[in-house]
C-alpha cells in the first residue's frame, strides 16, 4: 500500500485548500483553457508575458481536486520571473517526473525549493489514474505559452 501522506503532503493540502494566484489578472496576454474529460476538471491559465518573453505574472481559475488545484497553484508561483524557455523546461521536467520518466527529468538547473516542490507534486506517479490531475495545469500553461505568436487572445483548448 502506498502511503497516502506522500501524496497528500501538507503543502498540497494547503495549496489545494487555499490556492495562490487564483483569478483572472487584467494584464494577462496569454491564456489557455484545459479540461480533463475523464473527471470534468477545468482550468484557465492566465499569463502576463513582457516584451522580452519573461513571465511577469501567472494566475489560474478552475475547478478540480486537491491535486489539480494544488498543482496549478504551485505552478503559478514557480512560473513568475521565468522565460518562455525556462517555462517549457519546467513543463517537460514536470511531465517526465509524473509519468515515471525520472531519468529524463533534468532538475540540475532548478533551485532547491522548485525542485522539492516538483518532486512533491510528482508523488502522484504512484497513482496512475491521478497523473492527469497533476499535469493538467502544466499542459495548459505550455499551450498558452506556445500561442505567443498569436495576436488575438482567443483561448486555446487543451484536453488531457
Amino acid at each position, binding site marked *: *500500500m502506498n502511503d497516502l501522506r506522500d501524496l*497528500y503532503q501538507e503543502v498540497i*493540502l494547503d495549496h489545494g485548500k487555499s490556492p495562490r494566484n487564483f483569478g483572472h489578472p487584467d494584464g494577462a496576454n496569454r491564456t489557455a483553457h484545459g479540461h480533463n474529460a475523464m473527471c470534468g476538471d477545468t482550468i484557465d491559465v492566465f499569463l502576463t508575458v513582457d516584451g522580452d518573453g519573461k513571465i511577469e505574472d501567472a494566475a489560474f481559475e478552475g475547478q478540480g*481536486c486537491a491535486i489539480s488545484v494544488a498543482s496549478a497553484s504551485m505552478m503559478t508561483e514557480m512560473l513568475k520571473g521565468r522565460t518562455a524557455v525556462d517555462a517549457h523546461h519546467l513543463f517537460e521536467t514536470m511531465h517526465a517526473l509524473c509519468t515515471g520518466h525520472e531519468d529524463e527529468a533534468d532538475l540540475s538547473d532548478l533551485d532547491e525549493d522548485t525542485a522539492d516542490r516538483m518532486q512533491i507534486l510528482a508523488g502522484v506517479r504512484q497513482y496512475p489514474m491521478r497523473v492527469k490531475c497533476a499535469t493538467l495545469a502544466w499542459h495548459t500553461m505550455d499551450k498558452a505559452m506556445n500561442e505567443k505568436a498569436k495576436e488575438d487572445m482567443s483561448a486555446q483548448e487543451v484536453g488531457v
Partner: protein
Amino acid sequence: MTLASVDPVHRSRRNSGYDVERVRADFPILSRKVHGKPLVYLDSAASAQKPRAVIDAMTRFMEEDYANIHRGVHFLSQRSTDAFEAARAKVARFLNAAKADEIVFTRNATESINLVAQSWGRKNLGPGDEIVLTELEHHANIVPWQMLRAEKGFEIRVAPIDDTGQIRLDETAKLIGPRTKLVAVSHMSNALGTILPVREIVRMARAQGAVVLVDGCQAAVHKQVDVQSLDADFYAFSGHKLYGPSGIGVLYGKYALLEAMPPYQGGGDMIDRVTFARTTFKEPPHRFEAGTPAIVEAIGLAAAIDYLADLSPVLVADHEDEVLAYATERLSAIDGLTIHGTAAEKGAIISFTMAGAHAHDIATILDQQGVAVRAGHHCAHPLMDRLGVTATARASFALYSTKAEADALVEAVGQVKRIFKL
C-alpha cells in the same frame, strides 16, 4: 415501479432467507485483495462482477459447442445457433416480452439506444417534432438524440427533477404534447439511484401518441422488469451490469415497431437476398444484427439471468434495499457529507460529496483502503450541472454487498476526513 408477479419457483432454493456469504462465494474476484486490503467492491453500477456460473458457462461453451451461428449445417453450428437463440428466449422471459423476436442483441445499452435513434428516429423524427428527455439521463440517452437532431432538426425538451432527484411529473406532463414523438427516460438513475415512475410517464406519452424508450441499465439489475406491464415501446440494458459479460447488450422493441424500422447496420446475417441491384432484409430481430454477434457473451448473459433467477429477484431486492438503507443511515451521520439523491423510490446507489474534499481525492483515499467507488460526473454532465457539483463519489451496491462493506466505506471516509483534516 412495476413488479412482476413473483414466480414461486424462484423462491425455492433459498427460501430460508438470503445467505449473502454463500452468494459472495460464487464470485471469485470478491476474495482478492486490493492494496493489501480485502476488496470492497462498491462500483457495481459501473459494471458488476461475474459469478462462477457465468465464467464457467462461457468457458464450457467455447470448449464444447462453439462455432459461428446461422451459417453452417454442421453439428457445432447448430449447437451454437440453438444456444444463442435460447439466450434470446431467456432474455425475452426475463423482461416478460411477448416473444423472443422482440429481443435484439447489441453491444450494450448505448448501442441499443443508438440503434433506435438511427433506425426508428431517422425515419420518424423531423422538423416540428419534439422528443422529451429528463435531467437524469446518462449521456448515452442524450448524445445519440443530439447527433440526430443536428441532421433532422427536431426539438429536444428536458423534464426537470425536484431537489430529491425525482422527476417532476407535473412539469413532465406539460412538456409532452401533440408534437411529442418520443419520450426517452431512464428507469433508474445511474448517478442518483432514483427510480422513475415510468408507467405514469408511458401513460402521458401514450395519450399524445408518443413512443417511449426506457434506459433500463440500472433498473434491470435491481428490479423485476415487465415490459408489457410497463407498456414500454423500447427497453435497453447492458449485460455487464447484470453480472454478465461486457460486449453484450439488449434492445427490446415491440414487434410492430421493429418490423417497421429500417436496418441499422448492413452486413452478413441481416439480409434476405443480396444482388448488386437490390438487397432485401431479414425480419426482426435479425435485421438489426449485422455480422457475427457476441455469441459467447450471449451465452454468458443467459447464465447470468439463470443465476439471478435461482437466487430469487425478490430476495435480492430486499437484501439490496437493506444494505442501501443501512449505508444511507451511516453515511448520513457523517458531518460535512452530503448525499445527492434522496427520492423515496430509490435503488442501491449512494452519490455523495464532502465539504473540503473533491470526489477524486475521496476515491483515491478509499481505494487505498480497498474500497472501490466511482468518482466523477457519471456520464451525466447535465445532472451534475443541475446539482451544482462537478463530480460526486458514488457507492453502488449489488446482490453481493454487505453491511460490513458499508461499515468499511464509512471507515474509509473517516480516513478522508483525517487526511484532509475535516
